[in-house]
């Protein structure tokens, strides 16, 4: 799956993610986690990463990989999301915390030419089908 999106495409992005993960045989809970993580990363790209982005989904072994790329100014702190935001405040900053809690690995990198951000999330999905390596890449 390789899907471009902007603010108006977030609903469609979630539906597409669910359909692809279901096709892979992911469980309902794995699909829920994938949608939560993929949507938070996509929301970040729309809000802070230039208004649009690209989401790619693939699996390797029993792990789903969800990668979101944007063309924004980049994330200054690649360790963002490691500390729990204050629940009494409704300030932003919860997205990366949520993503880190639902993934086994969250890698934040600069874009290839130094512009934009690439975030790759790994979500455990032990029951997905194994038709071949990197089937949906």
């Amino acid at each position: 799956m390789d899907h471009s999106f902007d603010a108006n495409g977030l609903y469609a992005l979630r539906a597409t993610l669910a359909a692809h993960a279901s096709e892979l045989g992911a469980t309902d809970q794995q699909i829920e986690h994938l949608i939560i993580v993929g949507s938070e990363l996509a929301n970040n790209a729309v809000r802070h990463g230039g208004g649009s982005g690209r989401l790619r989904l693939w699996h390797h072994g029993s792990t789903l990989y969800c990668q979101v790329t944007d063309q924004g100014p980049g994330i200054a702190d690649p360790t963002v999301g490691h500390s729990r935001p204050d629940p009494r405040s409704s300030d932003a900053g919860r997205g990366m915390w949520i993503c880190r809690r639902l993934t086994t690995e969250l890698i934040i990198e600069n874009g290839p030419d130094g512009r934009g951000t690439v975030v790759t999330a790994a979500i455990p999905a032990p029951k997905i089908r194994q038709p071949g390596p990197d089937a949906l890449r």
Partner: protein
Amino acid sequence: MTDAVTTDAVDTGDHACLTFTDAEERLDLVAAFVRDGLRSGQKVVCWTDTISPDGLADELTARSVRPRAALRRGQLSIAAVSGSLLGPADVTAVGMVKVLAGEVATAGREGYRGLRVTADMAWATRPLAAAGELMAFEAAVTGLLGEGRLCLICQYDRDRFDAVTLAFAAKAHPKTVAAQVYFEHPLLRICRQYSPPGVRIAGQLDYRHRDILEQALTESTRLDRHMHLNLAGLDYIDGACAGVIVAAAMRLPASRRMTVTCRRAVATVLDLVGGSAAPSMRVQQAHEQQP
């Protein structure tokens, strides 16, 4: 043209039309109408059509009304419209008005200070139903309301009735009962819930509608001692909006409670943004809907 009001603004002498497309909203408004009637010592009659009397009693129970005790003491009556309002013989407007007048007289004899009646008018959409008699009934019932002992809410499903009948219904009823809607879109609906009181949100909710969510929660915080957030129809919530809900719960004093009904995916996000750390917040799982 009729005035749109909420159920707490109808009283004896009122004849109101409840038009709806969302079954949840209809049941919510009916529950609030029944609850308020029972609390104020009136007799309440529900004539149901699309769901059985037992089913309606269950729906009322699910909305924090206690129908069973009221049914036992005779303050509440729930019956199928076909065996009550419509009577055993041919359906006529005169016959229906007579049935209603009989209920008013009975409630008076039993010592109730008023009678609240709500009727599901879906029967008139069935093949061979005497739909014309419905319109005649709505016009003729005005005489009974003048006595100031009856309050009548007629329920019309906008998806079932044709536009001509709906236009007539709107004209025949001096008042229209409707839920307060904060936001309406095919993919998101945020409206006030009346029984139990709070907010109902269905669809998909993300940062783009955070301001509307805050407005709805602020109003519920102001109006409701205990807030009920019905998110059973919510498929998705992002961290920003979940954070707004948890922050609202954290601001409640210890004597107040926020009960959230939601599916697992929404509960997961609420928990991750600190829902379990909010002492006033209770999250209860709604049944998962089949796609």
